[in-house]
C-alpha cells in the first residue's frame, strides 16, 4: 500500500450508492480527480486566468507563466526539451496529428510501411488504417502469440520488413501488458518510433532520450488531471521539418495573401487558444503524482494486480486475459462463461457499488484475437475490465471478487 494516506483526497470514494460505498475500478478509462488538484485549479480559474501569449497585462502574464511552467515540468518529467512538448486535446488528437503531419511532409509516402499491433486501442489503429487508404502507405500488424492477446518480442521479429514507422502502445488497455519499448527500439533502430503512452504514463516515468523515442503521446485525464488535455512529445529534428496539422492563430509567424510562415516550436503545433486550464491542471496532477513518487505508484498498482490475478485463479469458469507474470499491470480483463460483460458490470454496480468497464474497450481487432483463443462456450466480443490506481486497496479487490462469485450464483454458472 502507499505510504501516504490519500483516500480522503477523493471524496467520490466516500459516497455510497444504494448502501454500498463506491469501489472505483475504472481508472483505465479515466481516473478520479484529487481534491488538492481541483482546489488549485479552482484558485487558478478564480484568480489568475486570462488568455495566454497575447496581452501584456498582469493576468495574461500570470496565465502564460503558469502554462509554460507546466510545459517545463512535463519536459523534465520526460527528459526532453520544453520546445518538444506540445499540448493537444489527448492521445487521439496527438496520433492523428503525427500521422497527418508525416503525410503532409512527405515523410510517409506511398509504399512505406507502418508497423503496429493487433493489441492497439483505436486511437493508435484507426488513423493508420484510414490514412493508409487515402495516402497509399502500407500497414502491417504484429499478432500477439502468447496467452490471450499477450505480445512476445519474437512476434516483432517474425516480420521481415523495414518499417518507416513503428507505432506501438506501451501498455495495453485490455490485457494490461507492459511492452518493452527498449527491445522494440533495438529491433527497429532506424524506424520512427511512436509510443502510445495513454495507459503507461499514469504509472511510469519515461525517459524519451534514453529510450530514443521519436514521439510519445498521452492523456492527462488518466493521470488524475482534467479531461480534454494531452501531451505530445516529439523529437525536435522531426518537429522542425513536419508540416503542422492545424492552422490558425498563434502557430504563425508572418501571414500574407501569398503564404504563411510558422512560429517556432512548440507553438507551430498549437493553433488557437489552448486549453489553458487543462494545461495548468495537468501540471498540478503531475506534481501530485510526483509527491507520492512514481516508483511507489507503480509498485502499488503491481501489488494490487498480482493480488487480483491470484484471487481470480480460484474462480471457476472465469477467463482472465493477458499475461500472468509481472508484465501484467493495473488492468485486468476477464469474462465469466455464460454471462455477458454488460450484465456483470451492471450488477457489480447495482448490487456491490463496484464500477468496472465492459465492452470492446475501443480495441475491436484485439477482441477478434481473444475470440479466436477463448475457451468460453461463446465469446461475447467484449470483456469486463477492472483497472486499478493509487486510491484502490486490497479490500476493493475482495469486494469485486465477492461480487463476481455472487453474480455467478445468480446466473447459475
Amino acid at each position, binding site marked *: 500500500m502507499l505510504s501516504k494516506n490519500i483516500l480522503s483526497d477523493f471524496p467520490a470514494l466516500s459516497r455510497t450508492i444504494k448502501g454500498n460505498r463506491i469501489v472505483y475500478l475504472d481508472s483505465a478509462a479515466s481516473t478520479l480527480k484529487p481534491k488538492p488538484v481541483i482546489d488549485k485549479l479552482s484558485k487558478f480559474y478564480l484568480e489568475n486566468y486570462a488568455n495566454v501569449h497575447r496581452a501584456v497585462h498582469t493576468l495574461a502574464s500570470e496565465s502564460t507563466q503558469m502554462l509554460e511552467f507546466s510545459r517545463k515540468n512535463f519536459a523534465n518529467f520526460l527528459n526532453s526539451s520544453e520546445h518538444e512538448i506540445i499540448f493537444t486535446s489527448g492521445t487521439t488528437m496527438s496520433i492523428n496529428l503525427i500521422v497527418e503531419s508525416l503525410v503532409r511532409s512527405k515523410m510517409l509516402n506511398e509504399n512505406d510501411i507502418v508497423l503496429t499491433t493487433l493489441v492497439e486501442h483505436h486511437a493508435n489503429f484507426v488513423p493508420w488504417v484510414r490514412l493508409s487508404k487515402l495516402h497509399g502507405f502500407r500497414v502491417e500488424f504484429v499478432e500477439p502469440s502468447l496467452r490471450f492477446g499477450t505480445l512476445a518480442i519474437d512476434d516483432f521479429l517474425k516480420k521481415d520488413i523495414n518499417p518507416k514507422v513503428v507505432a506501438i502502445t506501451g501498455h495495453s488497455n485490455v490485457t494490461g501488458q507492459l511492452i518493452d519499448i527498449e527491445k522494440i527500439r533495438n529491433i527497429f533502430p532506424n524506424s520512427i518510433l511512436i509510443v502510445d503512452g495513454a495507459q503507461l504514463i499514469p504509472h511510469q516515468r519515461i525517459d524519451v532520450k534514453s529510450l530514443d523515442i521519436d514521439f510519445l503521446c498521452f492523456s492527462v485525464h488518466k493521470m488524475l488531471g482534467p479531461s480534454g488535455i494531452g501531451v505530445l512529445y516529439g523529437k525536435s529534428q522531426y518537429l522542425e521539418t513536419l508540416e503542422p496539422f492545424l492552422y490558425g492563430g498563434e502557430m504563425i509567424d508572418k501571414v500574407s495573401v501569398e503564404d504563411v510562415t510558422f512560429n517556432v516550436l512548440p507553438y507551430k503545433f498549437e493553433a488557437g487558444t489552448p486549453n489553458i486550464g487543462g494545461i495548468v491542471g495537468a501540471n498540478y496532477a503531475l506534481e501530485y503524482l510526483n509527491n507520492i513518487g512514481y516508483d511507489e505508484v507503480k509498485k502499488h498498482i503491481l501489488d494490487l494486480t498480482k493480488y487480483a490475478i491470484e484471487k481470480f485463479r480460484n474462480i471457476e469458469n472465469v477467463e482472465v486475459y493477458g499475461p500472468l507474470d509481472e508484465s501484467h499491470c493495473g488492468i485486468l480483463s476477464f469474462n465469466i462463461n455464460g454471462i455477458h460483460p454488460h450484465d456483470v458490470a451492471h450488477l457489480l454496480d447495482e448490487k456491490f457499488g463496484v464500477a468496472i468497464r465492459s465492452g470492446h474497450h475501443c480495441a475491436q481487432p484485439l477482441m477478434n484475437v481473444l475470440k479466436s483463443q477463448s475457451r468460453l462456450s461463446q465469446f461475447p*466480443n*467484449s470483456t469486463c475490465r477492472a483497472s486499478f490506481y493509487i486510491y484502490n486497496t486490497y479490500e476493493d479487490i475482495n469486494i469485486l471478487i465477492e461480487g463476481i462469485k455472487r453474480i455467478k450464483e445468480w446466473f447459475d454458472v
Partner: protein
Amino acid sequence: MYNELIMDYSKLKKYKGKIEDATKVEEGKNLSCGDEITLYLKIENERIVDAKFEGIGCAISQASANLMIENIINKSIDEVKILIDNVYKMTRGEEYDKSVLGLIEELKSIKDYPMRIKCFLLAWKTLELSFK
C-alpha cells in the same frame, strides 16, 4: 432491472435460430459492445407470420429481442410500427400506450439506464431497419 421475468426471457430458446425461408433478413450492431443480431422475418401479405433471431448479447438485449418477437408475430406491419413507436416513447420516458406493450413494459426502467438503452433497443432498431 434484473427481475425474474427478464432473466427468464433472456434465456428463452423459442425464438432463437434461423428462418430458412425468411422474406427479410436484417443485421444490427451495438457499437458500444460489439454485440450483433441477425433478425429473420417471414412476412406474408403485410403481416409478420414468423420471426427469429441469431446472435449473442447481454441479458437485457436477449430478453428484449425475445419479448419483441413474441409481440410481433401475427401482427400487421402497421401494428408493429405502432408498437415500435410506443417502445421508443417508453425508453425516452414519454407517455405511451400501455395496452400496446404488454409484458415489454417490464423493461420500462431502462429509461433510467442511459448506457443500457442501446442493449435494449438493439433488436428494435434492427426491426425498424428491416421496414426501410
